[in-house]
């Protein structure tokens, strides 16, 4: 199943996992240790991240290590456009507020 990258980051635990594995490759156990949820819950999050194609899998001996596919995260740049759009909207609301302040002053 192919998932949308935004599903990966829609959940706070998954965002935290992405942060954890951005700097070093970790085993599922090492990831699970960082959270107060169950090992199964963390496995489920890892599965979703994998389906989003965000994980690089490395096998070392019997252990599987997961690391973040940094390139994939570049898709988030598109999100940056939305961040910009949020500011644009915020500012156009502020323009309106300032306009109202001005007309209030003129009344006085």
């Amino acid at each position, binding site marked *: 199943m192919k998932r949308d990258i*935004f599903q990966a*980051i*829609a959940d*706070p635990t998954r*965002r*935290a996992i*992405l*942060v954890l594995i*951005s*700097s070093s490759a970790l085993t599922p156990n090492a990831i699970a240790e960082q959270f107060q949820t169950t090992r199964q819950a963390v496995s489920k999050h890892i599965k979703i991240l994998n389906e989003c194609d965000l994980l690089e899998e490395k096998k070392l001996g019997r252990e599987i290590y997961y690391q973040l596919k940094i390139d994939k*995260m570049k898709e*988030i740049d598109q*999100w*940056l456009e*939305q*961040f*910009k*759009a*949020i*500011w*644009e*909207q*915020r*500012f156009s*609301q*502020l*323009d*309106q*507020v*300032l*306009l109202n*302040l*001005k007309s209030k002053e003129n009344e006085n």
Partner: protein
Amino acid sequence: MKTDLLMNFSVDKENKTVNVKREFDAPLPNVWSAWTEAEILDLWWAPAPFKSKTKIMEFKEGGRRLYAMVGPDGTERWSYFEYSSISPKTNFKHSATFSDGDGKPNSEFGSSYWDITFSEEGNSTIVDITIRRDSFEELQKIIEMGFKEGFTSAMQGLDKILAEK
């Protein structure tokens, strides 16, 4: 009214900063008030259909603004600003941290640090905002993703307001 207001938006990944610069067609004291007084901030801070709800506002050095972004379904996302430096009508700096409704920080995420400078240019006011993150450079951006769903409906909300005018 001026319609070609300047807006710059840039990201410096190396320094983990976002810079937003915007011109406002209003005198500096009004723009300063709009950024520093809770009642006015709540009118524009949240992109519709979100609403900003300020619970605590202590605009002084060491003081806090505790506020929520309230979604159309009533969901509240709390954060607080902690003001570290204030030069009236010129500049203020604060940290921004996700929290619960009592201002207890959410330790899962780091803080971001805001530096906001106000200057006059003719009859307009320029606001220059620099936001720096202290953790994984994408993190702040990712957190803001919470707005993804909200934003689509925000745009629809804006269309509606514009249609009514």
